[in-house]
């Protein structure tokens, strides 16, 4: 049970951070005309193709006592960063970045540019245009981003194992817990947790696809999901 609660807490933190940080990033990626934009796009999409262990490995090195992040953390908080809950949040934010940013980009891009022009000639600056026009018309994308980030973080394994290790109550998330049970041949225990995750994942996907369907009906298009061709 502690593992499930920890996973939920982690997923909530990561979702909140990615919603706040993902929006400006997605806005910039959707509207910028910078020629080197593709570089950043590639970096954002990297966690989609990178093995979690690779990502986890580099994050771990960076957070270690000799890594830049670890030293910085030590200076400010007086203790190391690796194998803490904070390290899990940080790694998960990186790992789930595309799941938050891609749906946001897709829905920002699908807002009719003429509406942005109309907003500007009516005297609204960029921020006001974002809050009053872009965001309200991107709600399905925001929901998709939130749901995917949350679900992806809930089910994370490799990165967590690399960065957080396996400390009960601190870094032992659901998927690690299941792995532990299987290692100890406690199949019934493992099954209970696995069922919870299975049901949860299924519910999440149902929500995403039903939003997609509704939006598709209304606007004749689909939102981004990692499983559909873009």
């Amino acid at each position: 049970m502690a593992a499930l609660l920890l996973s939920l807490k982690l997923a909530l933190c990561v979702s909140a951070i990615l919603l706040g940080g993902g929006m400006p990033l997605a806005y910039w990626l959707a509207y910028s005309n910078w020629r080197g934009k593709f570089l950043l796009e590639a970096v954002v999409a990297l966690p989609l193709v990178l093995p979690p262990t690779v990502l986890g490995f580099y994050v771990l090195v960076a957070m270690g006592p000799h890594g830049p992040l670890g030293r910085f953390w030590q200076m400010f908080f007086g203790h190391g960063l690796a194998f803490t809950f904070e390290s899990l949040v940080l790694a998960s934010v990186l790992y789930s970045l595309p799941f938050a940013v891609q749906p946001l980009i897709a829905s920002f891009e699908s807002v009719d540019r003429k509406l942005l022009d109309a907003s500007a000639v009516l005297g609204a600056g960029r921020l006001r245009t974002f809050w009053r026009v872009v965001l309200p018309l991107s709600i399905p994308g925001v929901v998709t981003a939130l749901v995917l980030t949350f679900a992806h973080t809930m089910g994370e394994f490799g990165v967590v194992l690399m960065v957080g290790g396996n400390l009960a109550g601190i870094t032992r998330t659901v998927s690690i817990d299941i792995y532990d049970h299987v290692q100890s041949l406690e199949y019934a225990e493992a099954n209970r947790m696995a069922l919870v995750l299975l049901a949860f994942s299924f519910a999440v996907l149902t929500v995403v696809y039903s939003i997609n369907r509704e939006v598709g009906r209304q606007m004749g298009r689909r939102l981004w999901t990692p499983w559909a061709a873009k």
Partner: protein
Amino acid sequence: MGGEVNAPFLTARVKLERRAVAAPPFVLDVSIEVPAGITILFGPSGAGKSTLLDCIAGLVQPQAGRITIGSETLFDSESRTNVPPQARRIAYVFQTLALFPHMTAEENVAYGLNGLTQAARTAQVQSVLRVFRVENLRTRRPPEISGGERQRIALARSLVTQPRALLLDEPLTGLDAELKHAIVDDLRSWNAARNIPILYVTHSREEVDALGERVIAMDRGRVVGQGSPLEVLEAPRRKRLAQSAGFENLLSGTVVELRPSDGVMLVRLSESACQIEVPLGYAGPGDSVHIAIRAGDILLANVRPEGLSARNIIEGRVVSMETRGTLIRLRVDCGAEFIAHVTPGAAQSLGLSREKRVWLVLKTHSCHLVEDSE
């Protein structure tokens, strides 16, 4: 009108070049002055009309030029002035209207009103909705509103902000003539008190006639004529403009002979023996020219007419007859093919039918010499 001294004058001198991979570069190079009241910006699609509006509104930055409203400079490439669109106070109604689909009509109209108390804002919104006769639609969203009413709401939304000028990009396309007139009348009465410059873009000759104001004609990124609709469009000097200005007949021919004492020249139409007299132009014998003639300017007779002042009487044969609304469109083969319009009554009394022999009568001054636009 005493207001003319204060009335803001919109001027735009704009140079902009756009290169595309597969197309020849598009060059916009115009200089226009728009006084208070409605000025029509007329030209075929692709002439650069919308791009010019985008530059004036600040949505597109020209490579060079200067845009001013009254005494304020909005853009000047030399002093590197570029006021952002949100600070220009120039209203712009797009062809697609761009109403915010998630807001009610009222919220759309109130969008541009800032720094007012709630009460003042509501009052202004109400009043402009009343002027444009859509106050009953306050709480509806754009998808639930019909075409003509959406256009009225878009106008109301851009005018409630007290703009210094108004840009309209084909705002009334797709509406029937009656509805157009009604909306334009409401726009005129709104502007009677304010007297701001209104630049009205259209490619429809019909709308130019209906609005009947100052016209600036554009083609391929350049201004090709300015003045009253009569001056600009009745004597089109450019072939493409003639086409879009509703000259149904565009004939090519060769100048045979100049008769300066009569103020005319004789032109033989291509691939026929048919010769017509047209007003003298910048052409000499042997030059090839284009002549534009309005289908409605051609008279028809079923016997060879005599004792007319008209100089061009051409014999031909009716090839086809087509009813188009309240008129009949005839194709007449005279060696060259002409298109003529007659009323159903006239067609009946002349006994017109296919293969019928007819005589076309053209006044010399109904034949307009046009330049090739290449």
